[in-house]
């Protein structure tokens, strides 16, 4: 197994924050393995009155030549958000409940420091608005007890919103919300699903699905 080593570095202790806040006991979970690339999330995100026709979600094909696998990325809402730390204008604010907001329009100078610094590649600089905008976990919805729009519509529930108990009862996989990027430790409010805890084997091949190495039996001379 080709394991990606976990980086070694000084682990900073994250600031203590209320767990509940506006989201109550609910959490946001991304399960990339379930993404079908339909972009319902992107289309729905555009509908928000606060960013008018622009989606804050990234859906990407991993390698369309090889696979239909896509990935979906919303803001991970870091406990210590790098975007805010690198912002020279102090334009990116974090709510008490841990939601990291889009840049404040009067402050944002459009420098794109945050776009470059975010370890997850989330913020976007939108020239039409001359401002950085990003996912705020539908604060207009979640702050009044509604589910975020993307996790509401997602047909495969690759984007999921609910309580840990609901997750335990209905879903599989290990939830991950701690990351190392080189020496930088990041803890996020949004969780992703891994098959199992520990280092991720990114070059491990088809694993339990051997057909994926040769979908059409070409090597067997069948197709």
């Amino acid at each position: 197994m080709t394991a990606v080593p976990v980086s070694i570095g000084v682990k900073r202790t994250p600031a203590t924050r209320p767990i509940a806040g506006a989201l109550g006991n609910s959490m946001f979970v991304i399960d990339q393995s379930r993404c079908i690339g339909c972009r319902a999330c992107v289309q729905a995100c555009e509908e928000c009155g606060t960013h008018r026709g622009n989606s804050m979600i990234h859906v990407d094909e991993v390698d369309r030549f090889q696979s239909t696998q896509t990935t979906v990325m919303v803001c991970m809402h870091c406990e210590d958000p790098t975007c805010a730390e690198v912002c020279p204008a102090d334009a990116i604010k974090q709510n008490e409940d841990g939601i990291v907001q889009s840049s404040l329009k009067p402050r944002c100078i459009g420098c794109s420091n945050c776009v470059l610094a975010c370890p997850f590649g989330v913020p976007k600089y939108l020239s039409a608005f001359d401002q950085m905008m990003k996912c705020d976990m539908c604060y207009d919805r979640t702050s009044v007890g509604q589910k975020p729009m993307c996790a509401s519509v997602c047909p495969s529930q690759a984007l999921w919103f609910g309580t840990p108990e609901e997750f335990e009862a209905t879903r599989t996989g290990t939830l991950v919300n701690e990351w190392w990027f080189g020496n930088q430790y990041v803890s996020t409010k949004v969780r992703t699903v891994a098959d199992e805890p520990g280092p991720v084997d990114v070059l491990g091949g088809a694993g339990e699905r051997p057909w994926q190495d040769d979908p059409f039996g070409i090597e067997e001379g069948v197709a």
Partner: protein
Amino acid sequence: MATPPITEEELVARYGPHLNQAPAGGWDAGIDADREVKTHCCFCGQQCGIILKVKDDQVVGFEPWYEFPFNEGKLCPKGVKRYLQNAHPDRLLEPLERDPSSPDGFRQVTWEHALDRTVSEIQRIQQAYGKDSFAMLSGVSLDNEKSYLIGKFARLALGTANLDYNGRLCMVSAGVANKRALGIDRASNPWADIPLADVVFIAGANVAECAPITTSYVWRARDRGAKLIVADPRVTPLARTADLFLGLRPGTDSALFGTMLHVLVERDWLDHDFIRDHTEGFEAAAQAVREYTPKWGETVTGVPAARIEQAAEWWGTSATGMLMHARGIEHHTKGVENVWAAINLGLATGKYGKPGCGVTTITGQGNGQGGREHGHKCDQLPGNRDITNPEHREYIASVWGCDVDEIPGKGLTAEEIVEAIHRGEIKGLLSICFNPVVSLPDTTFTKEALDKLEFYAVIDFFLAETAFHADVVLPGSLHEEDEGTSTTVEGRVVKLNASKPPPGNARIDWHILLDIARRLGRGKYFDFESAEDIFNELRVASKGGSADYYGITWDRIESELGVFWPCPSPDHPGTPRLFEGGRFYTENGRGKFMPVSYRPPAEVVDDEYPVWLTTGRVISQYLSGTQTRRIGPLVAQYPEPLCEIHPKLAASLGIEDGDVVRVTSRRGSMTLPAKVVTTIRPDTVFIPYHWAGRRAANQLTNRALDPLSKIPEYKVSAVRVERAGPAGTPVVDARDMDLHTEPGT
């Protein structure tokens, strides 16, 4: 005179598709909507619940409808952006009449004139050539009320036998197979059964793109540990996650299922009690596959023998299992046989009538289920009755209050109607909700046929490509402009609610039909004040038929969030799961095994046309694209057809990713960009079919029909593929470039 009055390019420039990018009143309009309307999506058979936001009598956005049990708020991109068909610049607002001298090709006329002209042409043609020389084509994006009304309208107002519908291109193979083998044509299970299956076998269904919400049900099964098997010539987005992938050659589905049945018999993975107590015909079905060893199956289907055996083992040894199929096995000259071969697998292993057990089609069109039950088909009367059965005719005549002889006999199917037009036997046509120039195979032939019509009238909300041939265009209503019911993929009857009135002088579809009926002097059969009146007559007309809606009322649907038919009486709870206790709806109550021998498709590859072509859909477009090709954000997602081709085949032809390729069949030729991917068989190319004109995949496809269901063989053609030019050759037309507009505009 039904030739396009001006060139196709000029018509497109005038009538679209143009792209609507943002809601009426701007992006803020939805923030303080005037009202919210609970209804359902206008697109596929899933019929997801959705809340539409309305402001100033325009639908300006949506909100998830979390309480609706099927989708619990989930939507695909089409559902999210569906509201952009409202306040659309292409919307037809006035009746039109063909006028080659006008720069627009059509001139605006009054309703009075348009209806008079239509009725006088109907009468002229029928007097000159006989009643059946005037045909009607319809579609099942229409609700149950309109579907029922059109069945009655064609028979009693037009008096023609020749009414058929676009479900002929969709669900009919499953319909024939289900009715003959099981005695009823409906999904075997509510979707809530999918998560209870230990094995989910998806055959010929691109679930993630064509029935996206079903993905979440499959995942719930997998969360319980279910195995997922997918059979498809392409590794579709859901197939990527399958435990077992059967990448079969197009047109070999019955060989795959037959081989699996062979293995089930050989290994005795059979439910003998179920076969004995609840079925008939097992011996003949087993005999038919006696020679279908895994090695034979591998040779015919191109799927490694070990994988077919593995699939049979999982299917045969799992306590519960659902086999779900769609157009991938049904769009064939043996579409009915393919479905029978699938049903045989269910009957042999007792996978019917129990939680998590069933074999079911995934109905494609919006009201593909309800619209195929109540007289919309050329051989059918309401309640899924048979138009040639004297008792059925007597009953419907008694409901309609007409003489039984006034009900015409069996007519021609959709493709056969077009062929009869081409032969000059049918001279006049009225169509609604059907765009055959895009959706029927062999586009050139379809256009030639339409050109020969003496008179063609269309009811539609946009001027779809078929309507380019029209003499009279009657502007009708969108889904959100009328109320009624539709029946979902599960067999659940749901309520559609109106959000707004039709704009301009557009009118509600059924009001137009009633006006025509009155002018034809047949108004006495069409005394309806409301869509609910129509539904209440449908209930009575369906009573006692195999699709019995008698116990379903609009009030019940609203309060119960849908009712599953059969529902024979008002106190009946409805029937979510069919065949419980092993009771089938056949005369003797037994499920019928049908012997299925494999036979090749109508067209096979040869030296001249050495590559298989199969067609299908993409997530962001719906059917012939009349609506979705007009919605900017959906067009942006997949702007033009691409030809998926395996790198091995591409290399042998000197084709690189993005190159323009020419694909040629015996019917026609088209050029389009190549998408080189390892996710398709190396002997097969795939082209999605949603586009018109020179981008229409159906320029290539074959008019060969299934002998029983009369569905065309869209899924198998033989083609030649050549490199036509380098990447970057402009094939995207100018309208698609409009996408790059400033945000918020």
